[in-house]
Structure formats: structure tokens, C-alpha cells
């Protein structure tokens, strides 16, 4: 029957069109460090360390871990550490960004203002104003306690060594 032939033809065409290897996906490491394991889980041997931005070809997903290939080597990386797009840079408001901010700021404030107005923002909240208090002095103090990733790294290493040493 002609109609059936059409259905069959459609299926064949659609199947033929499916590009080979469509299942392999490119993923990128989104953490500063991501352990590369010998198997799909943290119990396996740690065979390497991936870095922020590393591009990987993932061909399999097993219990939350991607099997990936990188520079010829392969292993498993946690699905939680990678995403399908490259990571955005760390927050540094450089000149370029400022320019971009300014440019967008020209485009949209009016639309935002009208959106906010249209939403009928409550002008006053009858909630106690206690919550409105801010303490930027304390915040700056807190920011002073920040550590660099390098310091954090050596702290983690030291902890690991301590355990190993015990």
C-alpha cells in the first residue's frame, strides 16, 4: 500500500539523517578542580585532576558520572562538576564589562522602570524596619578573611597529609 510505503520511507530517511555519534556530547569542567576517577564513583581510584574550562567528550553517563575523553586519556567525571557550556570567567569587573554594562543600561532602564511600576510595587512595607539595617563595616571585615584558591589548596593538601601521616 502506497501509504505504508510512505511511512516506511519517512522512518528510513529520519533514521539515516541521524548523524553518527550524536550521542557524544561536549562538556566543560566548571569547578577549579574536578577529580578524574577510574570508575563512575568516588570510591574508584583518582587517576587525575581536571581543571576549570577543560573541554571533554562525554560518551556515556552512568549513575551520575560521565565517561570522558581528554587528550587521549579517559576516565570518569562527576556530572555535577561539568556543564554543556564553557564556564564564565571569574567575577572581575574589567573595563570591557563596564562598557557592556553601560551599553545595556542605556537600552533597558525605561522598560525595567515601567515593568516595576506596572507591577504595582508596594511602596511601603509594614514589616519592622529592623531588617533594613546593613553593616558594611562588618562585611568588609569578613571579606578581609578571604583566602586565595592557592591557600585553600594547600590547606586541603595539608589535611590529607595529616591523615596520611596518622
Amino acid at each position, binding site marked *: 500500500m*502506497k*501509504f505504508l510505503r*510512505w*511511512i516506511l*520511507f*519517512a*522512518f528510513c*530517511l*529520519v*533514521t539515516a*539523517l*541521524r*548523524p553518527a555519534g*550524536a*550521542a*557524544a*556530547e561536549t562538556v566543560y569542567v566548571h569547578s577549579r578542580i574536578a577529580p578524574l576517577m577510574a570508575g563512575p564513583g568516588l570510591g574508584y581510584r583518582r587517576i587525575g585532576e581536571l581543571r576549570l574550562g577543560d573541554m571533554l567528550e562525554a560518551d556515556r553517563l552512568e549513575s551520575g558520572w560521565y565517561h570522558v575523553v581528554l587528550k587521549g586519556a579517559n576516565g570518569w567525571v562527576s556530572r555535577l562538576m561539568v556543564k*554543556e557550556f564553557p564556564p564564565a570567567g571569574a567575577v572581575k569587573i574589567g573595563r570591557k564589562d563596564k562598557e557592556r554594562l553601560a551599553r545595556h543600561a542605556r537600552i533597558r532602564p525605561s522598560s525595567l522602570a515601567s515593568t516595576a511600576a506596572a507591577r504595582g510595587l508596594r511602596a511601603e512595607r509594614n514589616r519592622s524596619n529592623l531588617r533594613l539595617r546593613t553593616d558594611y563595616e562588618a562585611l568588609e571585615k569578613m571579606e578581609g578573611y578571604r583566602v586565595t584558591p592557592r591557600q585553600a589548596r594547600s590547606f586541603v593538601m595539608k589535611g590529607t597529609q595529616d591523615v596520611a601521616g596518622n
Partner: protein
Amino acid sequence: MLLGASLNDAGWADDQHYVNVLVGNRAGTLGGAYTALADDPSGCYYNPAGIAFAPYRSFSASMNVFQRSVKTYEQALADTGGNLHDWQQESSALLPNFFGVIKNSGKGVLGLSYAVPDAINRRQRQSFHSIRSNLPGNPVENFTIDINDSDRTFLFGPSYAVRLKDNLSLGGTLYVYYRDREVVRNQLLRFEQGQHYWINYYETRQDWGLRPMLGMIWEPDEKWALGLTATKTFVTSGKLKQQTTFRDSSAAAPYVIDGITYDFSDTDTIYFSSATSHPTDDLPLRLTLGASYFASPRFLVCMDLSFNQADDGREATWNVAAGAEYYPADAIALRIGLYSDRANTPALSSKAVNQQEHIDIYGATLGLAVFSQQSSLSLGIGYAKGDGEAQIVADSLTIQDATIENLTIFLAAGYSF
């Protein structure tokens, strides 16, 4: 009827097919296999449950379509030299075919859309010479036919969908249905011996109704989605006005059609009739089952199977559509679709007269979409071809081969925010 060439009434609006215009940008270029996808505003039309799966909180889409269709009735007329002539009708329409917007609202997603699932502007202007007639020794010296039909269906209305679970959604659309049709047909035959036959027919029809649709989408796992819809159009009020002006000096004696005696012995006689009626013919129930397979974030295939119930005058009709979408780059999508658009009329019998034409159409679509961060632009092209049979001449057993060729160009834009 005394004459050899009078149009069979059947087949002047395309009521014989269910897929006359592919609605929506992505949907259209996937051949309309969208019941399991439906995750953008055109979901309001294909499966309202799908809009609950839309990736953006708000989304609008619009589409313009240029459609050209040529219908040919092969060898419909024979001239005195024995040559056979085709009848050819053309239709072209340029129209905004879809506009829709969806937005998160309450627990679900609210949609509002406008769609034109059927639009025809049919033209035929042909003249034939020395055509055989059934008056012995008196062929038709000149036969002129002039057809000017337009027939559009508009849908407009709200949709709402909710996700009952992460992988299950239900939705409904309530379209207001409006169909506006105008038919103008003029035929003049002049016989070699001086007589003439002239008929002018004018018809307008407006139908108002409601077209509710219920839909469901279920994703049994990450890779699969299944969709199901049921829809029916209820025509609540219809107005049909028909006018005929008729003169026939070729008849040797008065004759009777449908109880009216036509007597042209006075050469000044013209018959004029006008009638208004209020038909309300519902359209049959349609059920659609769709499946799509998300092979990867870059590739998917989808398929729809639709069933239109039988009612008086229409046969139960099955159609199938299949589509595939592939992203060669992150911001570019290529789509192809295949679909059937089969006639809801019975196959023609060699023993009956004035039968409706039966043409099964099969089409293919191809589309390209380009995305930027919040908008998308797509271009699509569709081609469909149908072969079948018709009985174009009134009261005649002769069956003509008929073909339809449709070319469609889509231009669509989407914006998410």
C-alpha cells in the same frame, strides 16, 4: 443539464483535507509532527500540554506564509479536433499564519494564540475553443470560465497548561473558530450556432464556532516524550448566502431541475435565485498521538499519527507526520519533515456521478533556524504533491486524473524573554 461542461459543485473549498496549512515555525518545518514536542507558543495549536514544557517563562512567535497551490484536472475537456484540455486552478496566499505568546501564570503556563489553519485564494481564468458539446452538430465555439474563491479559517483563543508532575502535563485550548468563505464562479458558453449559456454563482459563508482541544504530554524518561490530543470543532452559528443568475438559450424546450422549470423561449428571460440558510456542520473529532525521541541535545526525531473520525460525508482519515531536527552548531537548527494529508472522501466509483474528488497529498518540509540569545529567525520551505481522481463535469461518469502541487515558504520569528 443539457450541457457538457458545467462544474460539479463538489470540491471548491478544501474541505477534503485536514492539513491545509502547516501552522507554526518549528512545528511547520517538522512536518507538523509536534504533538509530543509542542513546547513553544505553537503548542497552543498542536498540543496545549506542551507549553508547560516551554524553556522560557515567556515566549512569543509569529509566522508569515506564502503558499502557492496548483490543482490540475487532466483532460477535462475535449475539443472538436479530438485534443484534450486540462483545467487548472491556482491559489496563492500571503498571510500571517500564526501568532502566539505564552507566559508563566500561577501554577501553570498561559497562552494566547491566533492561527490560520486553512487559507485558499483560488483562481481560474481559462478560455477554451471548439469544445465538444452534447448538442449534435453544435460545438461550443467559446467557453470561458472564471473562478475566484477565497476561504479562510481563523482560530483565536487562550490556552492553559499545568505540570502535574515533572514529566507529565495537561493542557487545554479553547479556540474561537471563524470561517469566512466567498465563492464567485462565472461560466459563459457560446455555441457555434449562436446560442449561449451563462451562469453566475455567488456564495458567501460565515461560520462561527468553538474548537476546544485537550492535550497531555508524558515523558516516560529523559529521552522520550509522548503526546496525546483530542479536538473537535463545534460550529454554533453559520450563515450561507447563495445567488445564482442563469440564462440558457441553447435549450430547444423548457426543462426542469430540482422542481424548477427553466423556460427560455422568451429570449429576454433570466433566472435569478437567492437563498440564505444557516447550516451548522460540526467538524469531526480528531485524535492525535505523537512521540518524540531526544537522541541528544542536538538531535531529535518526532512522529505524529492523527485520526479524524468519520461523519456524514467524510470518511475516517488517518494521517502521519514525521520530523527530525539537528543542530550542526549551537545556534543553528536544521529541520526536515514529512507528512501525509489524505483526502477524507471515498475513492471514486466508476458508476456514480457528481462525486467529490479524492486526492491524497504527501509533503516534505525543510527548515533552517538561527538563534541569538533571545530571539530566533527561521526560514522554511515546503513542497507537497497529490495524485487522485475527480469528477469535474456535472452529471458525467467521466473521471479525471487530478493532481495538486503546493509550494509553501515560511518566514518566522520567535522571541523569548
